[in-house]
């Protein structure tokens, strides 16, 4: 217990990084996932196929592979650089990896939401003269999002836990920090582990509750 209290600033700092990783990735993955979902329902076969191939590729690749590729492949070999500071650079590279991966799941969630919107909604919008993009933006996607708030919450919870894989390329988020605290306080590995596990619960449980509440509140009555 004393180890936990002594290291509290370090632990909170690590979770703050976890939160930042999550938020940055969530925004990027939501945008990219929405674009991919729009591509998957577009009238152009090329776009549908590209988005379909992307989702299949990313959804079926282990996240560790994606992150290691972004860190070592993009970062070291291809020399993609966002910052002078190595740790900031790896943070960005891990955000890219997490976003590319999570976007595939966001896309599939939204696509299933699009399938819940009755065809008549899109037809009525077309009959008014809305273009394909206007139709998606004003009619189909708003209803699709409301239908998949709960599944998107699950994607977000998975993302919070998945940020730990950024440890593989040395991003000092919660799990990597836990590992270094284990080395420093070998007498207290169990309390330290429990402390970190509790930290994740504090992040994930409210997300589940919040999204469940939002899903009910924003549901479209038909």
């Amino acid at each position, binding site marked *: 217990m004393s180890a936990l209290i002594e290291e509290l600033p370090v632990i909170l700092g690590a979770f703050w990084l976890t939160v930042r990783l999550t938020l940055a990735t969530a925004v990027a993955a939501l945008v990219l996932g929405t674009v991919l979902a729009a591509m998957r329902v577009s009238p152009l076969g090329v776009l549908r196929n590209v988005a379909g191939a992307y989702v299949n590729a990313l959804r079926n690749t282990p996240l560790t592979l994606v992150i290691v590729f972004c860190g070592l492949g993009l970062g070291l070999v291809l020399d993609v650089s966002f910052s002078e500071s190595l740790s900031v650079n790896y943070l960005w590279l891990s955000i890219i990896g997490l976003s590319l991966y999570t976007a595939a799941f966001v896309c599939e969630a939204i696509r299933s939401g699009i399938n819940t919107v009755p065809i*008549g*909604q899109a037809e009525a919008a077309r*009959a*008014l*003269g809305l*273009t394909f993009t206007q139709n998606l933006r*004003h009619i189909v996607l708003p*209803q699709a999002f409301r239908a998949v708030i709960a599944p998107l919450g699950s994607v977000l919870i998975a993302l919070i836990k998945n940020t730990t894989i950024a440890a593989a390329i040395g991003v000092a988020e919660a799990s990597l920090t836990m590992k270094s605290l284990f080395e420093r306080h070998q007498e207290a590995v169990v309390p330290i582990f429990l402390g970190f596990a509790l930290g994740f619960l504090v992040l994930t449980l409210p997300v589940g509750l919040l999204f469940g509440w939002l899903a009910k509140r924003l549901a479209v*009555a*038909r």
Partner: protein
Amino acid sequence: MTEADRSTSLVNLAKVNKHFGALHVLRDIDLDVTRGEVVVVIGPSGGGKSTLCRVINRLETIDSGSITFDGQSLAVEGRALAKLRSEVGMVFQQFNLFAHKTILENVTLGPVKVRKIARDQAERRGMELLERVGIASQAAKYPAQLSGGQQQRVAIARALAMDPKMILFDEPTSALDPEMVQEVLDVMISLARDGMTMLVVTHEMGFARRAANRVVFMSDGQIIEQAAPDEFFTNPGTDRARDFLSKILTH
């Protein structure tokens, strides 16, 4: 509308054919609708009536033949098609009001997003139209809070908000509880009186008698006969039309 306009063709279908897989749902359809005319399409289920309605604003594509609207051939896709659709109102059997938008938003969406009319102006006009169909007091509600008859009247107001040159009605009263049919028909009759060009697929023979200029009888994907309502109902020219009428009018 001048007298010259009244006699000119607004929609023309020539030799239109359409298949759904092996089903030949429209066979060599020739149909002309002039400005201000109210054409009622009747006939047995599965006879191609709804499809006829839906090919006019290209919610369904056709396999062969040609359709012209207001002198122009129907655009295949893109902005030109969107423009055509904005000039042809459509009222669906299932209402299809936008479920996540209020009644007023349903009526203003098209004018604001398609016609680029200022929102306050669109809302003023929207309220006028809701007033006209008797739903103004429900403007802030969502579609699911309204009865079927009210929803369908909103759908008509939504079509009118675009100032269409024509409105297509695809079985507008078929999904309604019986006591709500008349309120929708009343709105449609008043539109017909005001000179709106209408193509109405319906089973409501009373509406056809009261408001139609012409009845088109369709069966098996073909136009079997067309005539003025009085003539059609009292003295149908074909056996198939006589047979159909005897089934629906004897009860």
